């Protein structure tokens, strides 16, 4: 009887473990530890945004060209209610990143508006006074490359010497406390 109970609980534990793994994978298609698929964005025309990202010239650029060690990418959608609610906290996160002299210049943040035209991204930027650069992804190309994640979704990448992007953190949905989330970013990235 004892053996039977032990076997049952062992099987239960294995099932729960396997299901939890499946759930995590389903919720985080861009999984921590993965290499982020190459993403091409248009160099912003706004000189402030261009300068912040440390870019020169025109045309497209890769995220690895951003002058930083770590980049936080917010996948959002101007139409998404949760993204709208989250906007003030995301702005606060950006403010805290820049306020800390130890982090300034090392971490940069960008937003990608999935399914959004440049006009729709601009409406979001103006409404919430977003200070970091936002980019449109009208045809969902980037969204697909990132595993069609739910919005808002945050991806933290480290730019490696060979230009590849190592995903060190992902976060679906909002974060309640920007300071704590920044702490998590710093710890996970090893900055």
């Amino acid at each position, binding site marked *: 009887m004892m053996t039977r109970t032990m076997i*049952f609980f062992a099987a*239960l534990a294995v099932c729960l473990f396997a299901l939890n793994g499946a*759930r995590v994978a389903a919720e985080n298609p861009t999984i921590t530890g993965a290499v982020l698929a190459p993403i091409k964005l248009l160099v912003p025309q706004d000189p402030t945004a261009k300068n912040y990202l440390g870019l020169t010239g025109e045309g497209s650029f890769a995220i690895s060209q951003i002058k930083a060690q770590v980049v936080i990418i917010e996948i959002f959608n*101007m139409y998404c*209610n949760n993204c*709208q609610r989250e906007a003030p906290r995301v702005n606060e996160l950006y403010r805290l990143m820049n306020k800390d002299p130890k982090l300034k210049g090392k971490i940069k943040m960008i937003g990608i508006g999935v399914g959004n035209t440049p*006009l729709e991204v601009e*409406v979001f930027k103006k409404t919430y006074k977003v200070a970091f650069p936002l980019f449109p992804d009208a045809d969902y190309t980037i969204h697909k490359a990132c595993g069609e994640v739910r919005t808002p979704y945050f991806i933290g990448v480290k730019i490696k010497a060979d230009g590849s992007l190592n995903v060190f953190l992902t976060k679906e949905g909002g974060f309640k406390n920007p300071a704590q989330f920044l702490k998590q970013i710093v710890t996970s990235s090893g900055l």
Partner: protein
Amino acid sequence: MVKRKRIYCEVVMGAIAVVCLVAMAYGGSATLKENVYDVGALKPIDSVPKLKVGDKAPVFTLPAVSGKTVSLARYRGKKNVVISFVPAAWTPVCSEQWPGYNIAKPIFDQYDAQLIGITVDNIPTLYAWTHQMGQLWFPALSDFWPHGAVADQYGILRSDGTSERALFVIDKKGIIRYIDIHDINKRPPLDDLVRELERLKK
């Protein structure tokens, strides 16, 4: 030997039951998470147009979530009107479209336009659905009873009783200046609406 087989069967069945129960729990929570019912891909357009650009917009009076009624006639001579029909509350694309318009009020103001949202849902459903969008600046009207009568007048009532995802731009004289009966599965870009509102000025 028989006893061992029985234990083995019990363990396997127990494990299957646990797998099913936990999977159901995760599926349920995922649905509850957004409270949105996934309708899947639908026939893009399922109605026959009755109106064209240049026609007089059919007048209507409908109950609003606010408890009041709203008549199209009240805007005649005062405001341009954009009517956004969305198919149904608690469905994927519709649940995003109005929150987007909700932060685009300055654009509507710029073109002296009033947005009116209409669905065929009843007031309690519309209330619950729009309530979670925050405070809407435009009226959300219920075309529930007689069911879909206004949608039918505008030629956008689908065969399943929902409406098309459609936009009508009506000028201050009450004339229809733009109709977009959109693929129900896709959200119309804001750019199209802005372009048409811009044309009203000319």
